[in-house]
């Protein structure tokens, strides 16, 4: 196996609950995962499964209670502000909502030069970099002078991707980057992700609730359920022949865009649910 880029080990994230002596809410209960260089690891799960929290913990935006996150062998889960800022060149993010992830009062150029300013890049150089970035995400080069509200959701998401690329990162955490987009826009943005990965060799930790999206993009997939990873392996296995009962349910729950196939899948799903219910009852009786 080649060098691991990011390694998450037994990570636990607790959020304090308001109220006197109330036990904290455990968003992540001991999760382990790894991302290799140039790899895309999909993280799939339903709302409240902790997938977004894991992404935020890697970025240092969620409090880590215990466990370790190492980036190229270096512990990054408990960095100071200054050290975390130094890591910005390697670890970047694309958020879900392209409407709130761009400051509405800044122009696209101001948004894109932001990470460069933090590195004290020369102004001329920064401006040239902005043009390169806009080109890389297939936006017109005059887009820099315009405000985010002049762009559609898909275009905004391209701007957010360009911002993430500005410092040539090694890993981008993508938090549901296409779920706010229309179907046809979604496909084009996903292709852009693939294209950028092929060109720059950046790795993705790709968080999504959509098994199809994850299958399309990921090399390996982790399935999260109630703060834990229940299945982990190559995408061709996890997203096509899932083994864990929850992943199986998830797999069969997504409707296919084909009336005949969907009817089959529905029947399969009902069979699976009946079978799992039976097994649960068996286990209860045995216990």
């Amino acid at each position, binding site marked *: 196996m080649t060098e691991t880029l990011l390694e998450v080990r037994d990570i636990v994230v607790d959020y304090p609950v308001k109220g006197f002596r109330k036990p904290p809410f455990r968003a992540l209960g001991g999760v382990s995962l790894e991302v290799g260089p140039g790899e895309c690891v999909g993280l799939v799960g339903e709302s409240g499964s902790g997938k977004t929290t894991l992404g935020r913990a890697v970025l240092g935006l969620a409090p880590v209670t215990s466990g370790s996150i190492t980036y190229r062998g270096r512990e990054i889960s408990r960095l100071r502000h200054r050290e975390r800022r130094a890591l910005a060149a390697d670890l*970047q993010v694309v958020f879900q909502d392209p409407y709130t992830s761009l400051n509405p009062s800044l122009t696209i150029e101001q948004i894109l030069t932001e990470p460069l300013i933090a590195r004290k890049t020369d102004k001329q150089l920064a401006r040239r970099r902005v043009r390169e970035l806009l080109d890389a995400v297939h936006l017109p080069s005059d887009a820099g002078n315009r405000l985010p509200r002049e762009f559609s959701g898909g275009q905004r998401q391209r701007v957010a991707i360009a911002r993430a690329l500005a410092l040539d990162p090694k890993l981008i955490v993508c938090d549901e980057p296409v779920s706010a987009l*229309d179907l*046809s826009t979604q*496909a084009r943005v996903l292709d852009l992700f693939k294209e950028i990965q092929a060109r720059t060799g950046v790795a993705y930790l790709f968080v999504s609730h959509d*098994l199809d999206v994850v299958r399309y993009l990921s090399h390996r997939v982790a399935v999260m359920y109630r703060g834990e990873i229940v299945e982990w392996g190559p995408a061709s296995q996890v997203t*096509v022949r899932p083994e864990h009962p929850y992943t199986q349910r998830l797999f069969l729950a997504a409707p296919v865009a084909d009336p005949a196939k969907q009817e089959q899948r529905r029947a399969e799903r009902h069979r699976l649910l009946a079978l799992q219910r039976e097994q649960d009852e068996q286990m209860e009786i045995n216990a």
Partner: protein
Amino acid sequence: MTSLWRRLLRNPTGIGSLIFLVLVVLSAVFAPLLAPHDPNTASAYDTLSGPSATYWLGNDGSGHDVLSRLLFATRLSVTLTGETLVIAAVLGIVAGLLAGYYGKFFEAVGAAGTSLLQALPAIVVLLAAKSVLGPSDFAAMAVFGVLIAPAFYRVVYSAVSAVRGELYVDAARVSGLSDPRIIGRHVLTVVRAPAIVLAANIAGISVAISAGLDFLGLGDPAIPSWGGMLNDGFTNIFTQPLLVLWPSLAIGLTCIAFALLGNALRDELERVDAAPKRRRRATPATTVTVAPAAVITHDEAPEKPGTDLLVVQHLSVGYGSADGSVKTVVEDVTLTVRRGEVHGLIGESGSGKTQTAFSILRLLPSGGRLVGGSITFEGRDLANLSEKQMTALRGKKIAYVPQEPMSNLDPSFTVGSQLVEPMRLHLGLSKSDAKARALDLLARVGIPNPGRTYAAYPHEVSGGMAQRVLIAGAISCDPDLLIADEPTTALDVTVQAEVLDLLRDLQRERQMGMLLVTHNFGVVADLCDRVSVMQSGRIVETGPVRAIFAGPRHAYTRSLFEAILPDAEARGALPGITSSGTLGEGVTA
């Protein structure tokens, strides 16, 4: 910000008050040049004399020139106002930024500090401060600046803590920006505008307060002040009533100018706030553009029976804009829903599918109206019904299942009371009958413990449960037509599958007609009998589901099908990475 200035200059109230205030400041600055006499030289011969050629505004009780004193008093007022503003703004804005951005400790201290200051009676504190600090107006107004700082704190704190949660601030942190930089770039911009509005109002207040203190005789008598002159005028009101007029005018007009400036600023700012709202209706990115050609209609299977329940013909919906023109969002839409049939309406955001559904319910958002066509439901044209007739129809004959279950339940009433109300109204059931029926319905839609959900408040149930509750409510009066607007979009996939199952079962069981608005082809494949594809307000293709899925003919429909991912191959493992598949405790083989 520059645009705010520009707009303020175009606002008559704004420009007027601004000009007046600039004049006030200029006359304060150039008072020594403008004043015809020395403000402190008294002419004993001219005490209480009226306006004359030498003394334009007359003389006061001690024989000072009123005009000169007024000009010099302006200096005092302007400096005091500036002092108060600077102290209040620096204290309030810094504390508000710290508390809003860092929270926790700063927030607790800030909240305690502002509550304490606001609980103090300002006038009493000022009088006490006067007696301790002596007659200096500057000391007193410094104290006032501290007392009024909470106003700035509140405004800044709420603006900052709202921005703090924005994703772009998180993105800036991930970009490696330091905290001061983030505050400078992303946070101060939102604080600036409301703080300026507040500053204008506080300036007005501090002019009045400083004048009040001087009027009470608590100021330094050696320095001319508007309040002091007013006091002198009152003493001599019977001999020279004009003396009251000049300082009153100065105080009154300055306060009014500040207040009007504040209002004008706020008006102009609110107009800025209105702009981003428009973005939602911005034209979406659609690749394929088509000339308004004829709708492609697929042939029906001839054996399909069923009478027409809803017939929409050539429907157009428009929104009136400020300049009187009408923007059409739905154009020439024709579709039918038969009894016992599910008709899917599919399209991307902005295609007008939800607008079509809302116009059938006659629930278009304000500004929207039918500009053409007809909607026939069981033989009656819904477009011509009165609001009262329509209300009787909605809920009873035509029911609605919304996209966001949570925002469609009133948080202050229990689930049960929201279910019972329409049944008592439409079906005339007694309270206990309605409750029994509600419990039956909740059980029918698959809620495990109907009694508990009945008594629960909306925030106590999950999103999937809330959608089941709304479906129960929609079918409670046995409607003939169910309009479901993206009923599963906000739900998780496994919950979506359950809700789709439920909708299918209920629809078959009750032989309802159903119009299902969605953007998901999987949902259409799962539930619909017929489907219409919408693009930019028009239906481009319509027909039986199987026919369209087997052979989409319109370019746009085909492009939508091509964008679907499920058939794509899984990407497989990256060469060089051998999947261990043994990580973590929870992993099952």
